[in-house]
Each structure stands twice: as C-alpha cells, then as structure tokens.
C-alpha cells in the first residue's frame, strides 16, 4: 500500500491504582519519560506526539488533550488527541502508526492516560450521557446494564454458564500477580466470583475490572530509525478498526461483528490467513470476563461459542496453546481505559522480545494480537505485532 514499516522500540507504564496521588499530567509524564529512556532517546528526537484518553467527564477537564499535552511531551510539536471510547488504547498506536507509516514522522511518541478517580462519587455516573439522551437516558441506565444484557444474550445463545465465564476472571487476576503495575491481582476461585455481590445479573462484582488511574506510552519508529535504536524492534504488521451502529438494541448482541471486521482488516494487512494457527499470543480487551471470550471469537481465534470451553481446558492459560491476557488484563492489572489498551500492546512488545520476566509465555512467540472495544459496544480496534 506504499506505506513504510513501523516498529515499537520503547515502552513506559505507571502502576495502575484506584486513586493516584499524581495528576493525569504527572502520570503521562512518568509513562512518557520511561518510554523515551527505554530506547535511549530524548524528546528532541520525537517528531510527533499522539495522545489517547477517554471521556472528559472523568476528569471534569474539557480540552483534556490540551491539558495533558505537557505531560505527553507535546510542547511545540504536531500533536493530536484521539478518543474512541474503550477502544482508545489500541487505537493510540494505530494513530501513531499512521504518522510514521505515511512518512510524516520518523519517531512518534504515543501516550495513553486515564484518571477516572476524579469523578465522584463513582466514575460510572459519567457514563449516563453515552446513552441516547431522549430514548434511553430517561430510563436511568448504567453502563453495567448493557454489558449485563449482552452477557445474558451471549450465555443464552451458546448455552454458557456464569461459572464458565468466571474462569476468565480467575485466570487474569492470577496472571496479574506477576505484573508490576497490577491493581487487583489475587488468587481467587470460580466460587469467589459467583459469590461476589450481584450488581446487574448476570454480572457480579468480580466479573468486572476496577476503575483505575494510570498511564502508558510507546515509542514508534520508521524502519531505518528503528534498526538504529534497537536490536529487537517489534513490528506493527497490521492495524484495523470498525464501528457499528449506535442503535445497539438492533444488533446481534451475541457476536461482536465489528471486532471481526476490524480483525479482518488487520489480518489482511499482516498476511494472516488462519489467525488461530498463526497468532501465538493474544491480548483482547477484558473489562468484563465474558468480553475476553466474546472478543476471542470476534478475533476468530476460535469458533463462535467455543471460547469458554477452551478457557476451561487451559488453552488460554499462560502456558496454554494460545496464551490470552498473559499480562493479567483489565481484570487483573486494572482498567484505566485508554492506558489499558496500550498496556496490552506493551505486553505483546515485551513478550515478543522475550522480556516479560515471570509473565513470559513459553515457546518464543513471534506474532501477537491486541484488541480493544468501546463506545456503545460498537467500536473495535485491532493491532497485529511481530518480532
């Protein structure tokens, strides 16, 4: 397509915490500086900066992109903030990829930040206005409703039980014990999930990721620059995105078609014909446990309705055939929305370089996929990385 090869050459991340002492700007600075240091460059080497961050309503700061610019290292550089709901974090490196692949930049700093704790008493309240203001908001919906509605439809369509789904939460919280940024890593059982508070049946407390503060950053470079900066560049071989209608009540809620569309776009670009065989490691978005299963199916990593069975068989464990969320995911590491997606991309970066420490999956993986999802369950963003 006449586009240049783009590599990830550096990464930075903060701890994910329920409420951080640092401002969003300070968190952005911590992640950005760490990313630059990790590949031995300074801000002077950076041509362009992109920043991902989710609703302004979390922060109560309008123009959040501009507010965070200083922390993201954007001073007097071409800079743009992007926002596609929960899909933001994986869109962030796609946005940076556009700048480098097109030839506009040789080095692009990509930052993703979220500070949800400022919104009181709970950031859930900020989600009321994502629903249609006339036909839905008067019914006083919470975001958990639509996940509960989707989860019920998914369970019913394929005959999956809550216990089948709870295994995802157990696995991811376990995996997160080895992640230095993790907020809610713990050893729990399926029974713990089923016995946790019922919020909106079928969704219980431990089916859901927490609200979090945190930031992450990566450095993208063109091929020529990447080879100068590192012996182990990780290539962005495919990117894809797709949005479905906001009339979410008129969609098939049992299958994320928009994720499939985004995945096909990314796989075509990466030359992937059989994703289940060619992809070694996956980081799908898991803000709710059933979403990991839903997204594995949308990413065509397994047949529809089969993801729960594969999870029960250990297929998706860190030492399974297809490790899924070896980082610990949103359910274990935490879910500062935009930063979560980029955390997943960073996990693939480290795994493909063999630098994931105790989280390292066996078998020297060379190809990984990360995915995020958001808005009214309508946005899919997908990225394919290869070592």
């Amino acid at each position: 397509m006449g586009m240049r090869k783009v590599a990830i050459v550096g990464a930075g991340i903060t701890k994910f915490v329920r409420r951080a002492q640092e401002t969003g700007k300070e968190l952005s600075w911590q992640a950005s500086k760490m990313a630059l240091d990790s590949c031995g460059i300074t801000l002077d080497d950076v041509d362009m900066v992109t920043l991902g961050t989710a609703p302004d309503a979390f922060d109560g700061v309008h123009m959040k992109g501009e507010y965070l610019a200083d922390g993201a290292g954007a001073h007097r550089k071409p800079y743009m903030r992007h926002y596609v709901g929960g899909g933001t974090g994986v869109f962030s490196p796609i946005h940076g990829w556009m700048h480098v692949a097109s030839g506009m930049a040789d080095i692009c700093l990509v930052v993703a930040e979220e500070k949800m704790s400022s919104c009181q008493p709970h950031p859930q309240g900020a989600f009321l206005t994502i629903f249609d203001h006339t036909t839905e908001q008067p019914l006083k919906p919470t975001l958990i409703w639509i996940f509960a509605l989707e989860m019920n439809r998914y369970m019913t369509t394929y005959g999956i039980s809550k216990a089948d789904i709870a295994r995802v939460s157990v696995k991811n919280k376990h995996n997160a014990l080895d992640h230095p940024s993790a907020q809610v890593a713990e050893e729990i059982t399926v029974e713990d999930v089923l016995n946790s508070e019922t919020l909106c049946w079928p969704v219980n407390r431990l089916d859901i990721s927490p609200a979090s503060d945190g930031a992450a950053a990566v450095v993208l470079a063109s091929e020529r620059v990447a080879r100068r900066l590192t012996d182990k560049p990780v290539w962005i071989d495919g990117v894809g995105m797709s949005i479905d209608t906001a009339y979410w009540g008129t969609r098939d809620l049992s299958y994320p078609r928009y994720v499939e569309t985004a995945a096909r776009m990314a796989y075509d670009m990466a030359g992937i014909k059989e994703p289940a065989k060619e992809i070694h490691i996956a980081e799908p978005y898991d803000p709710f446990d059933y979403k990991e299963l839903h997204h594995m199916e949308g990413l065509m990593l397994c047949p529809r309705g089969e993801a729960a069975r594969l999870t029960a068989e250990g297929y998706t464990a860190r030492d399974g055939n297809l490790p899924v969320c070896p980082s610990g995911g949103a359910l274990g590491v935490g879910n500062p929305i935009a930063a979560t997606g980029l955390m997943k991309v960073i996990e693939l970066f480290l795994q493909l370089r063999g630098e994931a420490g105790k989280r390292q999956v066996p078998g020297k993986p060379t190809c990984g996929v990360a995915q995020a999802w958001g808005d009214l369950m309508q946005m899919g963003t997908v990225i394919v990385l290869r070592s």
Partner: protein
Amino acid sequence: MKLEDCKLGGTHLKSSDFEKCKVLTTEWTPNLGYAWDNGVAIGRYLAELKEGKIIARVCHECHRIMIPPRMFCELCFRPTDEWAYVEDTGVVNTFSVARVNWDASRRGPKEPPLIPAVIEIDGATKGMGILHMLGEIGPDDVKIGMKVRAVWKKPEDRTGAITDILYFKPIRAAASKKPAAGRKR
C-alpha cells in the same frame, strides 16, 4: 527492558490519606443544564407515544421497518420513505436484573431490582429492539423469548417521552418454574 527492573510511577492513595489530610483535593460540582432537541424522527416518535402508539420509519431500499424511527437509513445512506405504526407488543431479546442505580449506588434492601431489557417490537423488522423495563414479573421468571406488552401511563399523565410507557409486562402469566442451579438473580 523489563518492567520488573523499572521504578514505576503511580502512587496509590488510601482513604486514610485523605482523613489525615496527607493529601489535599479541590472539589467542584458542575451545574450544567441541557435542553436536547428531539429532532424530526424522534420528535414524531415521542408525539405518537403521547397518543399511546409506537411509530417506525420504513426504508424502501433495504425494506427495514426501523425502530427507533430515523429520517435517514444508515445502511443505504438515503432518506427513509414513510411512517409505519408498529405494535406495542414484543419479544424479550435479552434482560438483566439490576441492583445498581445509574451512579453505581446500590438499590436499598426494600427496593425491588430493576429489570432492563431489549425488546424486539412486533411489526418492526426482526431484531429491531429498544431498551425498556420489564414489570409485573419476578426476576426469576423472566426469560429470553418471552412475549410482552407495553403498560402505558394514563393519557392525561403522558408527556411525550419514552417513559410514557411505564414498562412492558408478560402477555401470558409466566409459569413460575424453579430457576436452574447457578442462575439465581
């Protein structure tokens, strides 16, 4: 690089940090008001709800009868062609049993859970559903596929809002079967 070898930022604050005034915060509660225009399609939809009717729009290209109604078809990307009344009955596509309010506060022990649902409206194209509530049914008796009918506010109380429908109730009293194990709501 290994994350394990890095000193990571992000300082976790505990409730006690605030109680002991170890950290200071600045608070602001916005007082913003909005008046949302209902638009052409939804304006008519609401006016019909006030009359106790549900109206849809039809696209002559894809032949969908669409609810909520819209003046353009997002698939064909052309104007929709005509209005069509649909039934005030439908089928439960999916539902939840909510013990949480919109702001994440919990419903009190004496407040019954809310049962939001996607209801596919009879007369609209298959799969076309709207978000609404179910009523006159216990949480353990709701089933996907159940037929339901709108329960309207009294005509004099209607304001031209989605809440002119109070909720949807089962058309036939559901047989109260024991819920399957692990399915307690």
